[in-house]
């Protein structure tokens, strides 16, 4: 649309032709390429009604079945939850649970009876669940030293383990830090009638942790020797890589209500089976109003018993199908032929 310069050519009449040729040869004109001229081949999708409706519809079609499947899977999971922190306190001490838990002379043994509501296929996962325990608390979550755990040469390294770095006489604690110090120490054993249900505590931790994070040649030392005992004591003759309870505990939970795997029971349980749990209620959650629960649960491909995902998928899928119809309707009611007037403008 712009004209070339020929109109003004009179001014350099004589040498015009030579000049043009010369110019073309050594022009400073930027080299033409699709990239520099911003003309790269491109796809320019536009959100047409067809697209909008099909995307919603497609999402709906995918999400609803997934939702149904996950809901069914979650329904399949059988879960027995028993809160025992309250029940295990002797009736005379319910007003002062803290005194109860701190008093070593009182036996912490406790028995709970559980009834299986539905058949449970093995493996049955045994979890303990803590409520209101902020394993993600900033002061807590930082109080560890991972280098110390995987290398015996670094067992003296206790940086960032405050306030559980050294014993009173200044010896480094292995494993140091608040997390290890507060290791959960309730224990459970299960019987069904006379039959002892063995809890398999092997492989409850991540293989990667056992092999790379907790070394085979690092042994607990000076652990739980302080004035205040936080939790479980560790057998100092067993290397850290085999202290699976510790390994599980050290994988700090993301949320203040969390479960930790205690072990697995490789026995099928039938409905209405009665299970006797003998537990020692050692762990102090009374200081901060935390709850302790014992959980027996089966698992599916989707994890534990949680309906949320199934419902979420169903709702979203449903919503999308609804939106697909709503948009179809809207487009039918108020169709707009593609493109004909610019709002502030009349197209000539």
């Amino acid at each position: 649309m712009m004209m070339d310069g020929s109109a003004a050519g009179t001014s350099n009449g004589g040498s015009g032709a030579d000049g043009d040729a010369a110019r073309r040869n050594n022009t400073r004109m930027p080299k033409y390429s699709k990239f520099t001229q911003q003309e790269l081949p491109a796809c320019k999708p536009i959100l047409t009604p067809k697209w909008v409706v099909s995307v919603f519809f497609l999402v709906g079609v995918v999400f609803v079945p997934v939702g149904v499947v996950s809901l069914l899977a979650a329904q399949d999971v059988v879960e027995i939850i028993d809160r025992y922190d309250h029940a295990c306190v002797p009736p005379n001490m319910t007003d002062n649970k803290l005194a109860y838990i701190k008093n070593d002379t009182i036996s912490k043994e406790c028995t709970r009876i559980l009834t299986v509501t539905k058949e449970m296929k093995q493996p049955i996962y045994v979890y303990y669940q803590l409520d209101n325990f902020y394993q993600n608390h900033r002061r807590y979550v930082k109080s560890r030293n991972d280098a110390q755990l995987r290398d015996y040469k670094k067992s003296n390294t206790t940086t960032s383990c405050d306030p559980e770095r050294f014993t009173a006489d200044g010896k480094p604690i292995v494993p140091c830090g608040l997390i290890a110090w507060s290791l959960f120490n309730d224990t459970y054993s299960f019987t069904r009638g006379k039959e002892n249900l063995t809890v398999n505590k092997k492989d409850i931790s991540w293989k990667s942790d056992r092999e790379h994070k907790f070394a085979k040649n690092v042994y607990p030392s000076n652990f739980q020797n302080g004035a205040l005992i936080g939790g479980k004591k560790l057998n100092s003759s067993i290397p850290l890589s085999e202290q699976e309870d510790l390994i599980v505990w050290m994988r700090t939970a993301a949320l203040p209500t969390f479960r930790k795997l205690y072990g697995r029971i490789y026995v099928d349980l039938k409905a209405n089976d009665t299970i006797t749990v003998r537990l020692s209620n050692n762990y102090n959650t009374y200081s901060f109003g935390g709850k302790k629960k014992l959980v027996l649960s089966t698992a599916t491909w989707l994890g534990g018993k949680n309906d949320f995902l199934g419902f979420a998928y169903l709702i979203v899928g449903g919503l999308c199908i609804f939106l697909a119809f709503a948009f179809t309707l809207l487009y039918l009611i108020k169709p707009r032929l593609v493109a004909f007037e610019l709002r502030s403008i009349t197209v000539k």
Partner: protein
Amino acid sequence: MRPDGKLPPPHPSLAPLPQRPQQATGTDMDPHARLPDPVPSPILKHSPSISRSLRSAADTSSVTFAADFRSPSKPESTSPSFDSFRTARSRPSSVSRSSTRRSASERAGSQRDLRDEDARFVYINDAPRTNAPPAMFPDNSIRTSKYSVLTFIPRNLYEQFHRVAYIYFLILAVLNFVPQLLVLSKEAGVLPLAFVLGVTAVKDAYEDWRRHRSDKNENNRTASVLADGVFRPKRWKDIQVGDVVRLVANETLPCDMVLVSTSDPTGVAYIQTINLDGESNLKTRYAKQETMSTPPEALAGVIKCEKPNRNIYGFLATVDLNGRRAISLGTSNVMLRGCELKNTVWAIGVAVYTGRDTKVVLNSSGAPSKRSRLETHMNREIIALAVALVVLCSVVSLLAGIWMGDHVDQLGIIPFFHKYDYSGAAAHDDGRYNWYGTGAQVVFTFMSAVIQFQVMIPIGLIISMELIRVGQAYFMVQDNRMFDEKSQARFQCRALNINEDLGQIKYVFSDKTGTLTQNRMEFRCASVQGRDFSETDGGEEDGHAVQADGVVLRPKTAVTTDPKLAALLKDGMGAKASRARDLFLALATCNTIVPIVEDTVNPAAKLVEYQGESPDEQALVYAAAAYGHKLVERTSGHIVVDVFGTRQRFDVLGLHEFDSDRKRMSVIIGCPDKTIKLFVKGADSSMFGIIDKTLNPDVVQATEKHLHSYSSVGLRTLVIGVRELSQSEFQEWQMAYEKASTALLGRGNLLRSVAANIERNMRLLGASGVEDKLQDGVPEAIEKLREAGIKVWVLTGDKQETAISIGYSCKLLTRDMTQIVINSNSRESCRKSLDDAISMVNKLRSLSTDSQSRVPLALIIDGNSLVYIFDTDREEKLFEVAIACDVVLCCRVAPLQKAGIVDLIKKRTSDMTLAIGDGANDVSMIQMADVGIGISGQEGRQAVMASDFAMGQFRFLVPLLLVHGHWNYQRMSYMILYNFYRNATFVFVLFWYVLYTGYTLSTAINEWSSVLYSVVYTSAPTVIVAILDKDLSRRTLLKYPQLYGAGQREESYNLRLFIFIMVDSVWQSVVVFFIPYLAYKNSAIDSASLGDLWTLSVVILVNIHLAMDVIRWTWITHAVIWGSIVATWICVIIIDSIPTLPGFWAIYEVMGTALFWALLLAVIVVGMIPHFAAKAIREHFMPNDIQIAREMEKSQDSRDANQPEVQMSTSTRA
């Protein structure tokens, strides 16, 4: 319309004015009585009194940059107040005051007589003495680089920390080291800042390295310098003040020097100043006869010159050649660094300014930095985000306080709080462990929260914007549709921080000459003795070749002649014809043109090129040649004109240069017939004052009529007069002249009065009309700009008729427009016409409410009225009228008024302004406007130097604004909003988690991920998309200029969009956080796994969000968007493969579960639904122009694809 004669004094349409120092013309003017001292250089131009007509002129009249008189051909430049502007940095009113003060010393140097304490003494050929203390002049090395290896780190850091944002991040980084806080690990805490600093430092280092390299090249060039009586090569950097330097043809000058002798016996040297001011024509410089006579080896003496200053058109010095009388030196005696010696075999000079004292270096400051409107608006939103940040942090610390208050008794024993150190070794803090009381804890929480949530204020944004602007600038520069073939001028981005402003321009203020017009003059018609000769139809294109010594000389440019006039000149008899011949003789002689003979392929034919600084003069001389009066030779003392084949020699007895006060020039010629004639050529307004109307009243009348008609077709007119001088008159003049030119004080005024004394009682010969041709494509460009809703104002120094006619020819004015003309001679009448105009505007406005049927209005106002209006503070009214008009044409305006007009709009509206011009007189306006554009054309480089962007042609404004401006604006606004959104989303995710950690600032997301988030995981796509994405094709944007309105209406970046995107950001963060939260509630999930899920989902989500808004998917876009998702994934995997981090192996574990994938999908879909639905609704039910145009484009494309033949025709590029 008023007759020309009554027009107010400033008369701009004058063209030919010899600004080139012509002192040599005086040297031989009379062989018997040689003038003792040649006429000094253009002193007249510097008088501050010239500018009295301008408001606040007294403040602004410093002349540091009197670049103006170099361009007198421009009408604007000849307006009265013009020359005295300090153009480089002049701003009206308050600003100018300070700048004046700053330049006081420079002014003193140029304008007053030299005092010893203001002078520098240069001992010729005695560098050691010259440079002895206390002088200590700098050496001649040039250093444009900023850093050396040693100083790089401290200096670069110092410079970078000048930015407030960096200080913010520095404070955060330092805060992080407070042991009680240490939110992030030490390494992670400094990473963001280090990254930003590092990238910038690398960029700076690279640029500086390039500068170093070019400095080195420059400094190591050699020149031959006199040492021990012989010229020896010496490196440039070693040249010292006082050295005698010898140059040969085509060599570049290494420093500023005073010319002492040349190969030419008269002491002439020609230089090309293209590197200095962009002018390609040759300028003459003169060596003093006194210095010429001494061989350089024997030269001794002292030059007393002013201190270094920036004025490249002024130089004041005297030379004292060992006891002889001091000789004054002027601009015509110096050659400045950067110029090239041409057409001169050799020249010898004495270095007076070296290195950083040279004028070219002093003038090489960059453009002032401006701030883009988008950035200003962005700061508003950043403040909003800062408030949001404070709110978030306050909420967290408040909740933390409440929680601690609730658990105050238990804090000591809660295993995860552990207020006391029980391990026993705790000697510190009486057994407390990191506990300073609830109050302090709350404060620490607040500060930790600031550190944790710092990316709420996007750190990457600053650096992203810089990268994006570099990218956008690259594409603008590379655009070969903005490349000017003729001048080989590429588009230049001189300011890198206002690219996006180009998309929001509402007002364009354009200079006329050289911008709308080519400043390439063509002689069109002449009024000779009351007869109009403008019929060139039957005429031949006549270069009028002449034969001399067997060689045919032909002017380079042919001019079409009027056969009748040609016949009259050639064969006419009688007084009329001889007057006509006088007229053309005047055109051929009364100028400062130098004929340069060029060889052609044919040895028997040669071309004559007329070199001169004024295109008008060139046009007139070419015209005179075509009409048989051919200038063939000009030496310092005589002119040879070939009159119809016979060579005639005229002695130049005297010459009064053009000056903007007189607005005319005159030359005293001794003719072969022993008569002495005074030819005067000048603007009509000035000429009619000195013409004796009684001599030929009919001619005067007719000429006035012709002048009027010439100027109404857009021609630039000149009036020519003659007077024969008697011998006594001449001698009287000569004595006065000699006295004036040697006066030590007030030389300028004296010379002016000498000129005024002789320039009187002139006989009118006639007038000429020269056409200033429009630049290519100007009418089309203006039309496009108008369609785009941009108001184009033309500010010109031309007179009203010329301005209006140019207005018509470039389609600025149309016939259906109602013109409001304000040109008043008095304050009173000006006020009255302004009031009339307002009532007219109001009447028209009330008549037509419908914007479609509105009568278009044009305001035409002249400089004088503007002065009155600005004087009487009636700006408000003027503004009212002006904005109601579609077109505003300001004629006869002075440069500072140009800036004043721009300021008028800038102050009173929020609309963006753009000023475009090519001359030094446009500098003030270019700097005042939001965006300044310099045309790199024939005029000097001042406009380009002051501009933010420079280009070759006015018409490139259309692609620049409509295409690149539009793209830049769209891209940048989206990028800023997106950056806010993406960082806020992440911060909100962190925030929700904090609510579940006992209000302590821990994160599930790995700290490295949170640091890398804004610099690695999500930054590349924003930058690339903001550089490459195009909402509409170039073709569509040019076809529908209305689309430009999107930027003017700020459609792509406003508070509404900001709120929308922030709401979206909150929603998405809720989705990202709570879907996994609810799914993993009461499960054994560990924080690292959940953190990885959150990291990945937020990164994927924001990238998909971007992907949904990308309009054009090229392979680069695909690569960068999907690539950064993949890169994030890889980073997460790498981080989780470090065994010493608590999250070791989490990603592998979690990726092995179906729940992870199901959640990821759910998060993305649920997160995107509102954005997607809103987008669908917006695009379908309330589409904006851009959306509609996109759809048109798309349907056009598919139509093209279906009909290949159509595609053929449309795809051929212009």
